[in-house]
């Protein structure tokens, strides 16, 4: 469903079919729509069988990294005598991304059900749903859904009367993009500063509270009940491209586009059709210039690259970028790439946890230089300096926030070098009104 716009006939609304449907929010409403049948079925299966089913479906992590979900679950050693934890990563903060927000706003029980199935599969008695603090409505919806599920005996010491303990708690973040990084989230949940941890150990060995932990994104977990209901083969069949990318993906479409919103299409859908047909193309009188297809941390695509891309994990890589979180940021020909890349750098500088020097210093210097170029005070050497800093920020830090800041800078200089040079030559931003710059000069 293209919420907030009308659904498009070329969408495949598995996760989004009830977006905008207020009656789907309550437990009774969710049950009427087939809710909790999957959990009932899963609780009757051996945990390993549930994991095998998810493995066979081909489901991969929808938070950005695309790690195979069933494989991740299989890393949890059942019966090791330790407490196991499930963390649901609902810290959605990647610029351009708002899909998890819509899942939690409209179908909170889909997430409760997905979490409960996963908890059963990995032997977790306790699940924490970590939701970013700014998500006041999703927090309220999820808290209410968990409360209802406890009241009906779906959660608790004997989930659905099966004797399996599944506890679930909603945990509110307090404003920090970095807490979407899985180990930073665990530190934050433990009551610490949200600093990412060095891996290994990986969460399955030592996660939250030092215990075996699986952490999955909201969309990943919400995709589990339909897989249990309809089978792995059904899910796997939803792909127009390779068997490495299966099922549907929710895209958050924003920026300069006629119909922004959440859209769900099968893997391998042509990006050109998606942008122009499903989302309505650029605003009237404008042309698309660039697209950032997977949230702000993935390489910028020129519109020509985007138009030739198939929408799946492999297709976006072939198209010079990554699927990432599915946050599609559209940029039209009236926008200045230098300004927007500088704005992204500012975002990363603001959100750096400051543990690693390359990131703390690199994001700050990148922002300063980008803003200097935008203001007409840049030099030729600045482009080389930016690339040098970017190199020093890539693959050298505890987490990838640093890399994420370098990505738009490097891809921006590669693909839109003419715009950078126009700023250097004219000693002003060519996109700003001449009167404004005349005053500044």
């Amino acid at each position: 469903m293209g919420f907030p716009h009308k659904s498009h006939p070329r969408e495949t609304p598995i996760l989004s079919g009830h977006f905008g449907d207020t009656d789907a929010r309550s437990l009774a409403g969710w049950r009427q729509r087939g809710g909790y049948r999957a959990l009932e079925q899963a609780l009757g299966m051996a945990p390993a069988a549930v994991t095998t089913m998810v493995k066979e479906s081909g489901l991969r992590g929808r938070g950005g990294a695309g790690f195979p979900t069933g494989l991740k679950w299989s890393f949890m050693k059942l019966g090791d005598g330790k407490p196991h934890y499930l963390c649901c990563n609902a810290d959605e903060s990647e610029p351009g991304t708002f899909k998890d927000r819509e899942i939690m706003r409209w179908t909170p029980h889909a997430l409760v059900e997905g979490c409960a199935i996963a908890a059963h599969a990995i032997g977790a008695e306790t699940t924490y749903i970590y939701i970013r603090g700014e998500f006041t409505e999703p927090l309220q919806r999820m808290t209410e859904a968990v409360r209802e599920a406890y009241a009906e005996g779906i959660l608790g010491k004997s989930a659905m009367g099966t004797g399996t303990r599944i506890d679930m708690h909603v945990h509110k973040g307090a404003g920090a993009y970095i807490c979407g990084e899985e180990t930073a989230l665990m530190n934050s949940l433990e009551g610490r500063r949200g600093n990412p941890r060095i891996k290994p150990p990986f969460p399955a060995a030592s996660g939250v509270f030092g215990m075996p932990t699986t952490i999955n994104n909201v969309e990943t977990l919400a995709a589990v009940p339909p897989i249990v209901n309809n089978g792995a083969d059904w899910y796997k069949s939803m792909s127009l491209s390779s068997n490495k990318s299966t099922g549907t993906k929710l895209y958050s479409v924003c920026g300069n586009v006629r119909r922004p919103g959440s859209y769900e299409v099968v893997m391998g859908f042509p990006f050109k059709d998606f942008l122009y047909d499903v989302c309505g193309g650029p605003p009237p009188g404008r042309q698309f210039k660039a697209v950032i297809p997977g949230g702000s941390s993935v390489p910028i695509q020129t519109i020509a690259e985007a138009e030739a891309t198939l929408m799946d994990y492999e297709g976006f890589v072939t198209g010079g970028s990554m699927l990432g979180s599915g946050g599609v940021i559209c940029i039209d020909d009236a926008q200045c790439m230098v300004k927007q890349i500088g704005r992204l750098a500012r975002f990363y500088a603001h959100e750096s946890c400051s543990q690693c020097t390359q990131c703390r210093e690199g994001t700050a210097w990148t922002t300063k230089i980008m803003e200097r170029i935008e203001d007409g005070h840049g030099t030729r050497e600045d482009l080389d300096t930016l690339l040098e800093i970017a190199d020093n920020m890539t693959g050298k830090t505890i987490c990838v926030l640093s890399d994420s800041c370098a990505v738009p800078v490097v891809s921006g200089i590669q693909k839109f070098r003419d715009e950078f040079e126009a700023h250097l030559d004219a000693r002003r931003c060519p996109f700003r009104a001449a009167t404004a710059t005349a005053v500044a000069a």
Partner: protein
Amino acid sequence: MTVHADATDYEPVFVGRRRAELDALLTHYPTKMAALLPALWMVQEDRGYVSEAAMAEVATVLDLTPAYVKGVVTFYTMYHQHPVGRYFVQVCTTSPCNVCGAEDVVRALLKHTRAGELGATSPDGKYTVIEVECLGACGFATPVMVNDEVIESVSASDVPNILARLS
């Protein structure tokens, strides 16, 4: 309970109902420290901000040090360390909203609230306006968060009406 607060007239937060809420919350986690973020939220809900004295109280109830609590408070952007206006207004200006005119919304808000500059509170104490990094509502540019409410798809021309509704 001993609270190492600098203000002698400090009224503790965690008494009565709040203490019971915190005790119930502690059962959700294997450590006391894990209740730190929720405890700080309770303080901010009741007091509007997290003072040094409140940090000391939280440290005492969770067996932490005030310095540790302050280290956590200052890491997260949503905890206020000073009083803010009655309406705390956060405007997303990150790139997806930026290309849709978010900076014009900020200018309109600073002007019409008379807050004047980012982070400052208007002379009547009603408004504090800040820029916020990505609110996760990019398809509804520009989202403006007023206290706990997100107002979607705001343009600069909507600002006077929104403020009139708050008055």
